[in-house]
């Protein structure tokens, strides 16, 4: 059985461009990748927010004025589909973000998975153990 891990690393800010949004939609697309693969083959995504990219993970995003989906709903969807979500601890501290302001779970979506705030070294280890790396 061949499972290949792909690391999705987001270091871009949300909303001005669509880079971080595309990171989420491509990451979640791992749910359906099997249709293109042989039996027993699969892709295992891991999603990490680093640098200013951690600002994608703030709670209470309200996109009503613009009529688009929020990064918050995408991240919660990632948790709902059991994707490992990592948030860089050093950057959370640097930007003075309280954990209570971060999207740590998606209970309202019915997800069991929770986000993890981890040191950059742990994210680097995930990159190292991945077969491929997509840096958004």
């Amino acid at each position: 059985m061949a499972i290949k891990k792909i690391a999705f690393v987001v270091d871009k800010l949300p909303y001005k461009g669509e880079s971080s949004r595309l990171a989420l939609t491509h990451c979640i697309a791992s749910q359906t990748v099997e249709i293109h693969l042989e039996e027993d083959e699969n892709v295992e995504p891991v999603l990490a927010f680093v640098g200013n990219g951690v600002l994608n993970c703030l709670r209470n995003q309200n996109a009503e004025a613009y009529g688009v989906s929020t990064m918050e709903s995408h991240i919660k969807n990632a948790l709902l589909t059991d994707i490992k979500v990592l948030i860089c601890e050093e950057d959370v501290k640097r930007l003075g973000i309280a954990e209570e302001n971060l999207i740590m779970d998606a209970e309202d979506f019915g997800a069991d998975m929770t986000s993890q705030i981890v040191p950059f070294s742990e994210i680097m280890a995930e990159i190292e153990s991945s077969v491929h790396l997509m840096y958004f």
Partner: protein
Amino acid sequence: MSKLTIGCFSSLVGSMTLDFAVKLAEAARKKGHDVDMWLSGNGTMLAKKGQRSFKDYSSLEKTMTDLVAGGMTVVACEACAEARGYHKEDFIDSFGRKSMDWYLASCFGADRVLHIGGE
């Protein structure tokens, strides 16, 4: 012979990032490598048929269709294209239209992945 998957994301017509991706693909093909190219986000602009040639823009359609004729695979994200108003009939004929999972599957089978993101 190895396989390279190039993901072209927020790159654009009028941005040399698209030129970079195309020239890199061409160089890899010349060296006998397999190449898959995925166009997503604004990168899907490359798939629009009928781009007129001006001296201020590099003209990539001929190079791309030649590369595809020679065995390279080019697929654009269907939803990203539709959102921009590029329907099936707007596409360069030999380019594919698939959903995002195709890119992940291409990466699954690739020896190297160059994911070109950026705004």
